[in-house]
């Protein structure tokens, strides 16, 4: 059985959505089981961690963890949805070192708190960047924005 089928069989009960298009697999999983799923993918199936990407869709914050099965050329993207008011998810750094920097980046850009991250500090932003301003978060007044309304003014203020 190939890696993809093993993965699918083991976790199909927890997928709330599973699509496969042109060698790209997108699977939505509960936030609580992230570490278990990633641990199996990374250690048992030796999938390669490519990167994680965060996205604020206005209602929830999505994080996609992209892994590659290099033997078959397939890319599997695990999707978790986080609460916009308190975005929090387990860090993957205890599983592998490669997640260390991208989690810091997503924390800066989207304000997602990665639990148990050994050093959730500024990585790309300058030291005087305001703590509470996360540029990739959709501002609250724009989450249900009228598409014809003028763009909101930036609220970025430096000390």
């Amino acid at each position, binding site marked *: 059985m190939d890696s993809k089928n093993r993965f699918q069989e083991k976790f199909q009960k927890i997928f709330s959505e599973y699509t496969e*298009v*042109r*060698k*790209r697999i*997108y699977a939505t999983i509960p936030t609580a089981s992230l570490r278990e799923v990633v641990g199996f993918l990374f250690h048992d199936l*030796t999938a*390669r*961690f*490519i*990167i994680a*990407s965060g*996205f604020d869709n206005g209602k929830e914050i999505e994080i*996609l963890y*992209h892994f*590659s099965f*290099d*033997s*078959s*050329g*397939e*890319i599997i*993207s695990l999707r978790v949805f986080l609460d916009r008011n308190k975005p929090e998810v387990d860090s993957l750094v205890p599983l*592998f*070192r*490669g997640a*260390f*920097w*991208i989690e810091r980046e997503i924390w800066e850009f989207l304000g997602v708190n990665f639990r148990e991250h050994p050093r959730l500090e500024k*990585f*790309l*932003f*300058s030291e005087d960047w305001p703590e509470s301003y996360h*540029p*990739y978060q959709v501002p609250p007044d724009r989450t249900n924005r009228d598409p014809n309304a003028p763009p909101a003014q930036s609220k970025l203020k430096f000390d």
Partner: protein
Amino acid sequence: MEKKEVIVPIGPYHPLLEEPEFFKLFCEGEKVVGIDWIAGYNHRGIEKISEGKSYDQVPFLVERICGICSTSHPLAYVNAVENLVGLEIPERAKYIRTFIAEMERIHSHLLWVGLAGHFLGYNTVFMWAWKWREPTLDIMELVTGNRGNYGIMCPGGVRRDMSEEDFPFVQSKLDDIKTKVEMLTKAVLDDPVLLARLKGVGILTAQDIHNYGAVGPVARASGVAIDVRRDDPYAAYNMLDWEMVVVTEGDMLARAKVRLLEIFQSIKIVEQCMARLKEIKGDIVVKVREVPPGEGIGHAEAPRGECFHYVRSDGTNRPIRHKIRAPSYVCIPTFEKSVVGGQIADALICLAGVDPCYCCTERLSAVAENGKTLDGETLLRLSVEKTEALKAKGTPV
């Protein structure tokens, strides 16, 4: 950190790095005991800018992410858009894409060999490699009109056709490059001093590669056989005859070997592309009328490793999310393994080992601790001195 340690800064501006980045080397005497990476000095918000561009405009934007591998990002991006749309591009366009991507690999690897030589105090290698890199840029200029930022990729195909009239010129230049690179490869891999500087330095195991997610020549030098061109073929790679270069030692010498030997494979691919382009005629682009809502992932093997692009569409003419991961993002963290435990004199070549995009900004800021200052010149001097000392000793290997 204990007080005994000296922090040797590399960056934020340093001749080794194209983009300003900052590495703090924590040293005890000559030994590097820790490293910290601080980035973001040149964060240009390209992912965000991309959300304001139409699908046709984005290739020009992502082309400007990197000046050296300027066709890899557009290629990964168009792969992502074509993955999203489900588009098959014309065969002729596939070969043109492959031609450009491989020519870029030749010039990028030659550039790396030159700079690696320079950092070891071997300026002859630097002069040679860069001299023989020139003809590759001439070929690019003839074929695309530009020596850098070729503007050739677009979703659905390529923007410019290639003319058969140019092929004799390209072939003559390639023949020339081939003989010269053969000579350079022999000279580099046989030189006892270079061997002493490169062998056993900055070793990365296959386990390290998996742990950090490193890609490209860095992974292939540690025996990890991954190459997007073979694993998930795009453009015309599955229709051509070529081999992936994999060596198992995992040291600096292995990384140099992989890059040098890949040049020959690239020349082989370019020659096959020209032969096929003489036979295959027809369109070079399929018009993309509409990008449906959805998401697409594309990747391409840049000279430094896998370029990864994720594009999400809401059905309008602009992406709503465009995630870009350049290969250096996952290769640079491997310094934690390759530099730590080694000597300061070896740090430069270890940093150069992943080929983290070089620059003309020849300035280095130095911070001294405990009255000891080690600036860029000192680092370069230390590295050159080590080579000279080895030379003086005779044949050290």
